């Protein structure tokens, strides 16, 4: 750990997240510059810093919402996030199979076959185009491998990040307001369920069983975060603190190995904050979940973190254990201004 670390190769089994020199610039503004971060398995790491330090931007890069300008993020040893390259090439490639079909058809004499030839060619071209587009949408492994051979690198989307094993909550709560608490968690469990289109149309037994089991598990998650029995309440009707807890439960739906929590205790009173902090700690001990946290509340940060990163103006100004960071003059200066250290 530390910003001087060399550009390490793939992570060891114990480091679950590795960010290397993550940088994001918006036009002329560098929001995040050269951030390095290692999160050990089962660890709780916090990022703190004044407002506008770039914490949420960094979070959004890790979560796949924003593409980085430079740097990489690797999760469980695989690089997920990196600067996109040659994305335009993919769009161009979509046309290729259809063109090939058209050319082959012309060569085979469709041009001379009059109207029928034209119709058949058009149909074949259309089918080729649709097939290509379907493949491009589904993105099977061979497709992405082929693209990366051509130098086309696409950074992970939020749903790819989730399927890799990360879950997140948002700074401004983003629950599905008009859905019930239970339904919110069921959405969170989306990738755990396997029913397919046939099951949907047939309303099959398999789907019914799966949904019933899912509802059971969702209720367990509600119990875990302290919202037992509130299944059928609309998310927008829940009190603020409960909404935050619901969002946490939803993030747990996909059995993540790493949770990204953006200011989980914002707006809570001390009692609720203490409960939330204890809950986060329990996630680590009971579920083995690693946590990356953005927080402003120092009691939470100091109380629960194994490791703290301090950011200001997009850069890392300090890191270490809570004690180390608390005493670092640079940190004091950043928070309280010069002259206070």
């Amino acid at each position, binding site marked *: 750990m530390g910003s001087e670390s060399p550009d390490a190769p793939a992570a060891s089994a114990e480091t679950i997240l590795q960010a290397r*020199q993550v940088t994001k610039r918006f036009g002329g503004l560098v929001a995040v510059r050269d951030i390095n971060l290692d999160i050990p398995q089962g660890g709780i790491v916090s990022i703190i810093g004044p407002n506008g330090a770039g914490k949420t931007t960094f979070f959004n890069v890790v979560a796949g919402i924003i593409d980085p300008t*430079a740097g990489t993020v690797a999760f469980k040893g695989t690089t997920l996030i990196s600067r996109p390259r040659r994305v335009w090439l993919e769009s161009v490639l979509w046309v290729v199979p259809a063109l090939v079909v058209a050319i082959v058809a012309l060569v085979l004499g469709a041009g001379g076959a009059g109207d029928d030839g034209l119709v058949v060619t058009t149909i074949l071209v259309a089918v080729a185009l649709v097939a290509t587009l379907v493949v491009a949408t589904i993105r099977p492994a061979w497709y992405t491998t082929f693209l990366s051979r051509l130098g086309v690198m696409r950074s992970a989307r939020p749903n790819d990040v989730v399927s890799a094993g990360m879950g997140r909550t948002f700074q401004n709560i983003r629950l599905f307001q008009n859905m019930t608490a239970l339904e919110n968690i069921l959405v969170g469990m989306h990738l755990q369920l396997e029913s397919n289109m046939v099951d949907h149309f047939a309303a099959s037994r398999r789907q019914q069983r799966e949904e019933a089991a899912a509802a059971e598990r969702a209720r367990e998650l509600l119990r875990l975060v302290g919202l037992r029995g509130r299944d059928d309440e609309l998310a927008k009707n829940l009190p603020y603190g409960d909404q935050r807890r619901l969002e946490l439960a939803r993030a747990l739906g996909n059995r993540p190995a790493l949770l990204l929590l953006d200011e989980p205790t914002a707006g809570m009173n001390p009692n609720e904050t203490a409960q939330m902090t204890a809950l986060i700690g329990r996630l680590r001990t009971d579920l083995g979940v690693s946590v990356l946290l953005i927080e402003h509340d120092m009691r939470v940060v100091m109380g629960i973190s194994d490791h703290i990163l301090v950011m200001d103006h997009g850069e890392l100004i300090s890191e270490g254990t809570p004690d180390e960071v608390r005493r670092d003059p640079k940190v004091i200066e950043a928070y309280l201004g010069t002259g206070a250290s």
Partner: protein
Amino acid sequence: MAGSAVGVTASPNPLVALRRSGAGPYLFIAALTVVMYFVLGPRQFINALTIGAIYALVALGYTMVYGIIELINFAHGDVFMVGAFVSLFVLTNILGQTGSATSLEQIVFELTVTFALTMAAIGVLGVVIERFAYRPLRNAPRLAPLITAIGVSFILQNIIQIIYGPSPINTPQVIPPTARVDIGGISVGWINIFIIVTAVVLMIGLQLFVSRTKVGRAMRSTASDREAAALMGVDINRTIAITFLIGSALAGAAGVVQGLYLGNIDFSLGFQAGLKAFTAAVLGGIGNLTGAAFGGFFIGFVEVTCGNFGYFVWAQAAVFMILIITLVFRPAGLFGHQLGERA
């Protein structure tokens, strides 16, 4: 990789250097202009510039509104159409002009009055639409104002259709198409010169307004970050209303021009033109004024080129393909910035 600087380095690749310098779009346009001159010939080239001016004026309204409230104002094309009919009304019912004017004083007088009244009326129409159909829905989900916009579009079309009937109507061509001047051996219509000059003057005026005045600054800051602008004391409602006022007034001017140049109008004018003008705005970079202007001219060229080669009906399809290609390959348009974000 330790020690390598992030961001700007001396790049050996000339293409990348070109892209970074920002000159790319301008070169593209310059090259295109030269090519089009030779493809179309001088007469159609002038024609394309004129038609393009109309689209540019309408595109400006689309791009301004989208820049500030991120809404495609579907009713904007129909606002343009209403402008054409208002100018018809002004000319025939108020000024009593049904054909071409006969003296320079008459032309100046009639055009001034028509432009002034039409632009004012349509500007007000735009403000009213915003106030009653869009403002109440500013915090509603995205779908709501889009649907209202469609509703307003249909309301406008049908009101005009009820008043004027479904068939095209002839409009007075105040500057007679026969009045021409010889420039370098080419016969150019005064009407073309008038339209192109007027459009350019309006566009420059708009650019100056947006960059130099306090209101213009308010518009830019609201478009860039509404909350911050509000915190700085900008009156958001008023700023948005002014945006609609100006955008609609420009569309009104375009409506006058449409009547003057093409000589007939009908109620579906806005619907047809709206799609093309919006494509122009997207092509140029949505939210970007220069882009909308150039986009408008580009679309004018596409349309005239299609017509020139006898494929007029395919102009719509060509414009649609341009829209798709732009959105898929370069959603930021010619002059916009690439964001790296996704919903």
